[in-house]
């Protein structure tokens, strides 16, 4: 077999949450029997943004904050791939916030793993948009799931914690399946502590609340989900679990003419459409 890149070397500090995310992704892909060559992992810039180097798959290192548009380009032109976008909370919620809003709205079939450590790891410890207010003047940290709830078209909003590996594993699979089934954008925020600049393991372990643990919780009701998330957050908790699931169609399926081959597999030679081109040209004739 052709040797390809060695995906075993991580660059993370010992104890970094990102290890857990990576391992869970790798095992979920294996268990779901997704062939490596049909998988593409796209990552942003940050410590989180090296995860693609550690998965046996096609990998892409995007620009800071631009992983979602790049992943959308992939998803629309080759929907046959299993697409995993990944990145940090700085990447996704700060510089990438606008794209996140619009990706929620578009609902393309892909998984987005937002590795939230409430800090900028790679640039050594600045506040990220999810950082807890550290002093009176600071901003409050934002919640990506509430954001997702506020946008029409969202179909899968979940949060896991590397300190709760079973839940993380379950949600990872659910996210992959959601996207593979063409239901759309599976947003999975993973609380993935940065042991070097913001060691929140203990704090978060004490605050996570698995919404799904409550039998009465209705994850199909957007407004109720918002209310519950708000309530838990106000009480100092961090809501986790599959918080919301909605109906929707993958963007690629929505916009492509039914039955056509994906753009990546279209013939490129002019003959394939020569008559059509001639007709179009005739519209300009004088």
């Amino acid at each position, binding site marked *: 077999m052709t040797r390809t*890149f060695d995906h075993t070397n991580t660059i993370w500090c010992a104890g970094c949450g990102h290890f857990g995310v990576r391992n869970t992704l790798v095992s979920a892909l294996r268990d779901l029997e997704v062939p490596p*060559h049909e998988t593409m992992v*796209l990552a942003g810039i940050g410590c989180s943004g090296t995860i693609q*180097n550690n998965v046996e798959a096609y990998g892409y*290192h995007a620009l800071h904050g631009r992983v979602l*548009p790049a992943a959308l*380009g992939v998803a629309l*032109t*080759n929907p046959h791939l299993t697409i995993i976008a990944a990145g940090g909370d700085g990447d996704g919620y700060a510089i990438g916030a606008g794209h996140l809003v619009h990706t929620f709205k578009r609902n393309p079939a892909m998984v987005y793993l937002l590795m939230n450590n409430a800090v900028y790891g790679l640039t050594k410890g600045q506040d990220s948009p999810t950082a807890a207010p550290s002093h009176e003047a600071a901003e409050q940290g934002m919640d990506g799931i509430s954001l997702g709830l506020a946008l029409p078209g969202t179909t899968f909003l979940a949060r896991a914690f590397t300190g709760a590996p079973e839940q993380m594993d379950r949600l990872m699979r659910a996210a992959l399946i959601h996207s593979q089934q063409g239901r759309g954008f599976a947003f999975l925020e993973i609380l993935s502590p940065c042991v070097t600049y913001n060691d929140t393991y203990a704090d978060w372990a004490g605050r996570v609340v698995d919404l799904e643990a409550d039998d009465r919780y209705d994850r199909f009701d957007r407004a109720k989900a918002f209310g519950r998330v708000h309530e838990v957050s106000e009480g100092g908790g961090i809501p986790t679990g599959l918080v919301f699931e909605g109906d929707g169609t993958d963007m690629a399926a929505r916009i492509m*003419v039914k039955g056509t081959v994906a753009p990546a597999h279209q013939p490129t030679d002019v003959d394939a459409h020569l008559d059509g081109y001639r007709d179009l040209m005739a519209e300009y004739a004088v």
Partner: protein
Amino acid sequence: MSKPKTIIDLTAMVAGQGGDGSLTVISILTELLARRGYHLFTSRNVASRIKGGLAAATMRGSVARRGCLGDSFDLLVAFDQEAIDLNGHLVADDGVVIYDASDGPLDRTSLAEAVKVIEVPFGRYAVRDLRRDLFKNSLSFGVISRLLGIAQDEAQDCLTHALRRLPPRLLEPNVRAFRFGLDFADEVGLGLGQGPWCVDRVAREEQLLINGNDALAFGFMAAGGRFYAGYPITPATEILEFLQKHLPARGGIALQAEDELAAVNMAIGAAMTGTRAMTGSSSPGYSLMQEGIVHAGSAEIPLVIVDSQRSGPSTGMPTKPEQSDLDMMVFGGNGEFPRIVLAPGGPKDCFDLAVTATNLAQRLQCPVIIALDQAVAQDARTIPYFDLEAVEAEPGVRLDAAGLSKMAAYGRYQITDSGVSPWAVPGTPGGMNLITGNERNEWGLVSTKPDVRQAMAEKRMRKIAALGDDLPLGQRFGDDGAEVGILGIGMQTGVMDEAVARLQVSGIAVAGLQPRTLWPVPQETLAFIAKRRRVVVVEHNVEGQLRRLLMGAGANGDRLGSVRKYNGTPFGPSELVAALLSDPAFADNVAEMGIVA
């Protein structure tokens, strides 16, 4: 009235407030002249606002093929006084003005004495159920048809054809308005054959009347382009709109992104799957795309990017032409990477170079930029049919499962002599690889080792070196043996051509070059300069960017003259001739040759 003059070259303007529908008159007129076999050139001149703000549509119909407007307007249809005040001085001495006198009599201060004015009292012809702007367009066309000595049937045929997309209930009153125009003409002594002009009937093949944006989008599509992401912006929007309309039926996608950053990164994503992808914008939007373009250069992703330049800086003048992003296209963005900048001079070039760009991007796995300016992008002209059969889609160096299985190891950034690395796109069994914008080793894994870095930087740059002269050549005009030359790109093409021809007529031999490859500066361009005593660079910007670019590439600055304009209006042919002759070294060298007529 004297015998009508056969007008073989007519430049006309219809001007009023935005929304007045000036374009309609022009399109009926072009239909008319096209049927007579004239070549056409049309251009718009609008304010960047929806309604109101002076808007003008202009055209030139001529027996010879022309790439610009004539020096002055033979005909001006003015729907208000402002249109006269702003454009009156551009009317030819023996020109004709049709004026809407509804709001009062004409102040003709700005018009030359001999200009003939026909004041049409549109108010008197107000027709119930007719929107006034439609009404006045068709009415004025009636008058125009008489000026040109066209019989009613032929003229009406052109009108109904040009308005064929209107619903019948709207078409009918237009025809009535047209007839009002004829009646009015009769009243003022402009019966058939009594007008100043008549139109020839010449033979030419059926052609396309198309603008640069559409031709470019067409070329991209024909070359197998199947993904475009853009964001609305004047004057690049037509590319997005064309592709949104025509790609889906051909298995492609064109998408309006949330902004230009998203657009360029979506196109990058699409390109990574092996889809031929393009993005485009106009100046400020292109500014925003630079990080993405550099990234494509670094990560070795094939991507075509269009800059439909407008007047800058910043938001500038969205509807006005300029060539002031040359520096940005060639030098913008952080760090260094192989890039190619192509510069079409008209719709045919746009089609051809879009094909070339799409192929070059695949062949070199790097960004290829197409530099338009608002004039090239939005002016339309008649050109021969595209040679569709000749379009070939070069595949580039791709790897499939079979090819991979023969390799012991495969990494995305394999160092090669050509600088291009074989590429396995996602989905290819066994070809898993890493794409990154960081410096990396052959596997695509981040590396900052000095020798790795150096090898990678050199590998990337080798793509351009390996290309040699295999880049689109320029177009030549005039006398290639001449001691003086003129050089310009894009919107200068048509007017340079005409200026050179006029100089030739006066016995002045001038060589002209329109380089189609702007970057890397081709040998051809440098040789053209080196061969002459003086070459005047014609451009639309303040700083003389093209001239500076050529000097940076080694051209001798002492030989390079500079003729520039930056007021948002294109050069006219005699304006350019005058500007050339006022370059002392140009004039000197012309004189030395003793060939001034």
